[in-house]
């Protein structure tokens, strides 16, 4: 057997193993979705939930949706929340992969690059001081502010980085600086806020939560996340090439600068649109790519989809626990995400001998 065909056989074997891993995580995600829809502070459980969902999805099949209150609980409260958790987890994980990939740095997340600080500042401006970029749309004042300021933060990062040529180092350093700037301004708002209640409200927003999930918010977030994920996916091969070094990338015809700017823009857009609705849920973007890398290696064509389904799993798990542990009260999801994510992450880190980051 020639070496070439032996290599190809090994490659295909590895490829199949990776696809299998991704499919298994997807299956786990489906199971968690079913469990999550069946549990909550309200009384409806598995049977009622399935009936309501089937009757709404396939009205012509004649399923009995049950009493109105059950329909409201399942279809207006629990299901939108589960769906938003899946979308948000997936989107945050995808943006984590994109940023770590193009900046070739394992510690990078949209959070270290100042996006979350921008969002937090924007939200605090609206919550504590009532200053909004839009004033017409009631509940969306905070959302719009968070979105606009996180995009603004990223534009500032890009503008500063450009002065020294767009390289991973310049982007990261500019991001850290902008992040500190917005953090300081956020603290300033909390310090001068006219009410203690306002300070608390800002803190709770920063801790993150999905309790305000509605179909309306999903309709806004979903298209952005889907399109951006697809576009990031198209750059996965470029990210593979870039990991071999800038000279190699250039010789193959990949324009590193362009890829960095494109992927950063997409990752920012995704993160900003999610975080504006959910508050700062930091851990997912950092940790999902790492866990996925430990499981299936760093080929971005597989790493990205793997990370996406894993991120959805993690956030949905965290949010379901956040709803259940102190029932009927809830815990901010940001706390739970880190509490369950860290042990899982450490377990994988300590139980494998391979080197995951090169």
């Amino acid at each position, binding site marked *: 057997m020639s070496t070439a065909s032996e290599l190809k056989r090994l490659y295909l074997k590895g490829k199949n193993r990776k696809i299998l891993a991704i499919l298994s995580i997807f299956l786990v995600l489906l199971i968690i979705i079913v469990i999550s829809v069946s549990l909550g502070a309200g009384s409806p459980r598995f049977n009622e939930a399935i009936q309501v969902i089937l009757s709404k999805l396939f009205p012509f099949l004649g399923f009995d949706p049950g009493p109105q*209150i059950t329909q409201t609980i399942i279809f207006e409260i629990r299901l939108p929340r589960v769906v938003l958790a899946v979308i948000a987890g997936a989107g945050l994980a995808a943006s984590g992969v994109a940023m770590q990939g193009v900046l070739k740095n394992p510690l990078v997340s949209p959070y270290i690059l100042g996006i979350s600080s921008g969002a937090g500042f924007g939200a605090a401006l609206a919550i504590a001081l*009532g200053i909004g970029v839009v004033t017409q749309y*009631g509940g969306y004042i905070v959302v719009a502010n968070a979105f606009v300021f996180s995009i603004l933060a990223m534009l500032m990062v890009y503008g500063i980085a450009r002065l020294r040529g767009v390289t991973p180092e310049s982007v990261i350093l500019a991001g850290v600086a902008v992040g500190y700037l917005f953090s300081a301004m956020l603290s300033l708002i909390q310090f001068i806020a*006219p009410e203690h209640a306002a300070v608390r409200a800002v803190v709770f927003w920063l801790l993150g939560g999905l309790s305000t999930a509605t179909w309306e918010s999903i309709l806004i977030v979903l298209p952005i996340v889907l399109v951006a994920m697809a576009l990031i996916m198209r750059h996965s091969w470029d990210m593979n090439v870039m990991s071999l070094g800038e000279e190699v990338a250039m010789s193959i015809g990949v324009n590193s600068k362009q890829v960095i700017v494109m992927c950063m823009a997409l990752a920012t857009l995704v993160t900003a649109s999610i975080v504006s609705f959910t508050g700062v849920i930091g851990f997912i973007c950092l940790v999902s790519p790492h866990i996925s890398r430990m499981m299936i290696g760093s080929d971005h064509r597989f790493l990205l989809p793997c990370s996406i389904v894993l991120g959805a799993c993690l956030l949905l798990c965290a949010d379901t626990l956040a709803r259940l542990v102190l029932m009927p009260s809830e815990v901010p999801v940001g706390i739970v995400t880190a509490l369950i994510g860290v042990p899982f992450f450490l377990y994988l880190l300590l139980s494998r001998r391979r080197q995951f980051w090169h």
Partner: protein
Amino acid sequence: MLIIVVSSYGVYRLYVSSENGSQKETVTVVDQTGVSVEVEVPVERIVNIAPGAVEIICALGCGDKIVGRDTYSTFPPSMSEIPIVGESSFSPNLELLLELKPDLVIADEGLDAENRKKIEDAGVPVIIEMFMEPRLTTCIGNLGLILNAEEKADEFIDFYEYYENLVSERIKDVASTEKPSFYFEWYMPWYSTRPGDSWDELLVAAGGTNIAPEGPISDPQLSPEFIAEQNPDVIVRMLTRMDGEDIAAFQALRDDILNRPALSETTAVKEGKVFVIKNAVLVLRRPIGLLYLAKWFHPSLFEDIDPTAIHEQMIQKFFGVELEGVYAYP
């Protein structure tokens, strides 16, 4: 000569002593922290950094004795001319504060032990109080003594107690099954108050039943599906300064609740029993808040009561100004 006065307010003892041969007279009161504070009377210069106290001091006719304040002490309007010595009790500027040469500093729990000691070391007595139930009447009584305005203090306490008694009299025969269930929401969506806490006590005194469960968290974020299933008869949302103060701010908060899909099936939303109330009348002017709530919970029992009119009278009588702004909606 030592005169011991047994307080008519019950929970504490106080001693008024006047030393033979000297002009010095002191009043000793026990504050919330359990410290006996000896204050030389008459007090002429007060720095008040307890937002709960300013309305009481002014109602006792001693507003002109306040020489320094925190940023929250904004009513009555004359306060705007008084210099600010700190954002709140958490962060007083001691240099500014002591420069005003106060005879007495009134602060709330935010004042830490070090700052209290520094002020006391400078020879200025410090009283720490939250000016909240269950110590509210005690606090008013204490201030009455210190400010030599016992009559006014009694009048003020009588006003409070008159309306508190009126409400409790009228709802005492209401069966617990007739008491509407309420969901109380303060500054953020789904954040409520657990039974036994300060907000809850007021709403229960007004004849409602809290849907929130007992629990370890004082202001729990309730699950929306839990609220939907509990099906509250009335929803009360608190408005704070950060929401705005004009009628539009009240409407916006009410509309937000009416339009939440999770609440669409509740009796409160279906019957339009969603009310917004300003926090000022839930804390400082508690009887006014109590009357609004009682009327919302039991409209037929309080048909003859007009909380806004009583509020206007109160402001007229104790502060001598006209009531301005919105306090409850609709």
